[in-house]
């Protein structure tokens, strides 16, 4: 196929339009009759002029330059790239469910509110939390809201000194940045070589300035924190609260619950654990779950059920306030709701079981060819590291995988493992797919010794070669001049 490399602006031609309106039907008085001239535009609107079929072809061709989950395997650690069911897409377009204005009166949106209320109850059951707020728009937005709850809780208790949030050095980058944006301090602690919390180091920071501790469990190394009960006791005895980063929930559904481990507040990533599509970078959704002692502080409005009627309650004096407009990423929540009903309790448990089985199987086979960061039973993901080689790095291996039609694993994360490759197969990949990937990884390992140039120069058969990222940052071109 001939390669396509035009921008929409480069196929624009004056006089074309891909859009038609009905006749105006009402008086066609000139604009400047009522609007003062100095407020009106001084030049033509700058948008490309393309016919509808031109637009369709342009974006269809661009889609052909993209690798989606439906295209192939996406073993991206920490991202849980599981299959996005198609029925969810159909449901998310059901006009009775989505053609609703957010300010419609409550009695006219009882079905929408019931769906959200039920979705929240299911998430509470899965996580062992007392209540769930669906509002946050993404995982990191959920972190922000959850940390706000922690801060509000301490302030309500008159504990204004409690401003420190402990974060392990293996945490996702969003953890420390979320702490900072809610006006709390980050205390980063070193993990053990296996990625566990170092209890002795943790103890050094347990004082009356402690607000809370953020933990991902299983950790970003794919390991379940064996000391979680001890950690929970220590944090709570010191007057702190425990935050659960739900990015890795896919490992434990139906097996263990953050609420039972002692966590007080958490976020879910509906676009990871609950199958909603990533959309090339969103929208996702990051609902938060919390224990009753934090319920008063949750964002408004709260969806409540009274005498079989649902309502939006804004009258919550201790609430942190609003964290976004309206009620949540409703369209995403609807897809996740459909997924939860599809899987049922037993299906979610099977999903977690299979995700863990798949990850351990891949690790068992790959560890004979690549060093593993932690050689013990993993949960939903595991980490390989750079094999010793004079030239070839993790980045080269990732780029070589592109040549074989794979999206590479997450690389150089967590930061505490040098040259990490974080692999997460999820439960929705078949054994054949995993076997083919494993064979490819083994072949690349061979190439490193026998034909290193093939790896170093990769990718060779993608649409473009490696990108000059330095140039992009130096000569800033972030819009097209036309």
């Amino acid at each position, binding site marked *: 196929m001939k390669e396509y490399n035009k921008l929409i602006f480069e196929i624009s031609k004056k006089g074309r339009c*891909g859009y038609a309106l009905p006749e105006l039907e*009402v008086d066609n008085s000139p604009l400047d009759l*009522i*609007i003062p001239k100095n407020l*009106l535009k001084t030049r033509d*609107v*700058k*948008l490309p*002029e*393309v016919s509808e079929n031109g637009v*369709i072809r342009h*974006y*269809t061709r661009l889609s052909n*330059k*993209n690798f989606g*989950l*439906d*295209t192939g395997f*996406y073993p991206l650690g920490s991202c849980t*790239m599981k299959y996005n*069911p198609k029925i969810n897409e159909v*449901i998310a377009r*059901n*006009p*009775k469910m989505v053609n*609703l204005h*957010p300010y419609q009166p409550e009695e006219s949106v*009882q*079905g929408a509110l019931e769906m959200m209320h039920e979705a929240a109850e299911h998430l509470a*059951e*899965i996580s062992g939390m007392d209540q769930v707020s669906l509002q946050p728009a*993404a995982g990191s937005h959920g972190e922000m809201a959850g940390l706000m709850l922690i801060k509000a809780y301490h302030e309500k208790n008159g504990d204004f000194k409690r401003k420190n949030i402990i974060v392990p050095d293996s945490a996702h*980058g969003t953890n420390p940045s979320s702490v900072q944006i809610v006006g709390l301090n980050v205390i980063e602690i070193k993990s053990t070589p296996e990625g566990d919390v170092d209890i002795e180091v943790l103890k050094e920071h347990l004082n009356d300035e402690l607000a809370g501790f953020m933990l991902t469990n299983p950790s970003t190394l794919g390991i379940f924190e*064996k000391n979680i009960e001890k950690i929970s006791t220590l944090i709570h005895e010191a007057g702190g609260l425990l935050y659960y980063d739900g990015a890795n929930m896919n490992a434990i*559904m*139906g*097996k*263990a619950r953050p609420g039972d481990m002692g966590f007080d507040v958490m976020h879910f990533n509906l676009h990871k654990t609950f199958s909603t*599509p990533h*959309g*090339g*970078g*969103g*929208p996702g959704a990051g609902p938060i779950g919390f224990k009753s002692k934090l319920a008063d502080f949750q964002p408004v409005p709260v969806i409540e059920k009274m005498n079989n009627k649902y309502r939006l309650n804004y009258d919550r004096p201790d609430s942190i*306030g*609003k964290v*976004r407009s309206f009620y949540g990423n409703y369209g995403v929540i609807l897809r996740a709701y459909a997924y939860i*009903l599809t*899987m049922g309790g037993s299906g979610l448990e099977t999903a977690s079981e299979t995700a863990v*089985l798949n990850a351990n199987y891949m690790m068992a086979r790959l560890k004979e060819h690549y060093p593993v960061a932690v050689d013990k039973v993993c949960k939903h993901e595991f980490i390989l590291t750079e094999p010793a080689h004079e030239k070839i790095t993790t980045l080269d291996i990732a780029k070589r995988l592109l040549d074989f039609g794979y999206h590479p694993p997450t690389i150089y994360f967590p930061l505490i493992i040098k040259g990490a490759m974080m692999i997460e197969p999820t439960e929705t990949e078949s*054994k054949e797919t995993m076997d083919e990937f494993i064979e490819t990884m083994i072949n690349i390992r061979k190439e490193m010794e026998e034909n290193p140039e093939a790896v170093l120069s990769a990718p060779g058969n*993608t649409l*473009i*070669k490696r*990108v*000059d990222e330095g140039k992009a*940052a130096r000569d*800033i071109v*972030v*819009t097209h001049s036309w």
Partner: protein
Amino acid sequence: MFRYIPATEEDRKEMLDVIGINSVDELFDDIPKNLKQSQPLNIGAPMSEIELKKRIEELGNKNLSNLICFRGAGAYDHYIPAAVDHLISRSEFYTAYTPYQPEISQGTLQCIFEYQTMIADLTGMFASNASMYDGATAAAEAAMVAATVTKRQEIVVSKSVNPETRKVLKTYCKFRDIKVVEIELDEGATCIKDLKDKISDKTAGVMVQSPNFFGIIEDLDEIRENIIDKKTKYIVYTDLVAMGILKTPGESGADIVIGDAQSFGTGLTYGGPYLGFMTITKELIRKMPGRIVGESVDQDGKRCYVLTLQAREQHIRRYKATSNICSNHALNALAATIHMSLLGRVGLEKVAEQCYKKANYTLRKIVETDRYKLKFNRPFFREFVIEGEESPEIINEKLLKDGILGGYPLEKEYPELKNTSLVCITEKRSKLEIDSFVERMGEI
């Protein structure tokens, strides 16, 4: 047997053999016994598509959907061309991850680059980010940028900014110890005298909205002239449909422009996911939150696109990042890009003109009923405030019986505006719909 899990019994057995264990349970031995869930999850049995669809239909029947909409207030019922959903339903787009691997993500990256270009052009600014959650969070983040850049802890915001936006702004600011000062209204617009009184050398940013919450077109030049302190950032919340007829905020000297582009490509969907946007001047680009796509070349010198200036972002800077935003609203941004491409120059101008002319027609007809009057005597775009004798709730209840969603009652957010409602007209409303709406309004 689950539809989305391919592993067969045989597969499981083979995998267990390779791992060297007898049962999957052994893989969960690392979870302390007393933490292991003893009960199965109590969320019902798995459903087939048939059952699921019935359940959704049952829920849908409890909603009044597809109402003839005369309500905006931050969520707009514009027409979305069929081609938009067709294209965003391509799984190469919607099942892709964030484009961290540029070699296999040129589709998403180029779409974001085109989006950035269109949004920057429409607002008259230097650069746009890849998207944000919604207009309200974009506004809050803009305030954070202003506070960070000026090292000041005070934001001055007009009361004519959408109340929902101001609430979110206040939440974000409260946690960062940033003071929010509100400017009073003058005939439904920002009171210039009060603005002068409230800004000082402590002000990090001044935030106004135009067209404002009441639909009124603010005089952005005049407001700019009254921001004397050169360090204070001028933040303008705007509407992209209005850019079809109005001067851009960039021309009025805005430092940061924000808003919600839900009107382009995203339906009402009960309030989310929507599409926050942010554009900025050249000197602020390294302070902008979120992702940015830049143009570059590959090793062969071929033009291509890549995520750039990532040193600002959470995955690199961690607690020193400009923002914690990670997943944004890329698919909504793609929908907006396609929608804007279809509209083109002429389409956007026509849609904006139709909104404006139909809104003026509606107002004239409503006033002719002798039951209502225009509340604020100022130029507006597609929304206007009317005042009557009756409570708008009572009027709206009657309209709802006819499948009409009436204007937004303002008294709850603005206690001084008793018996007023904010009426919104988009290009979707026909003369027939408008006439029967006015007729009902006159009867009540």
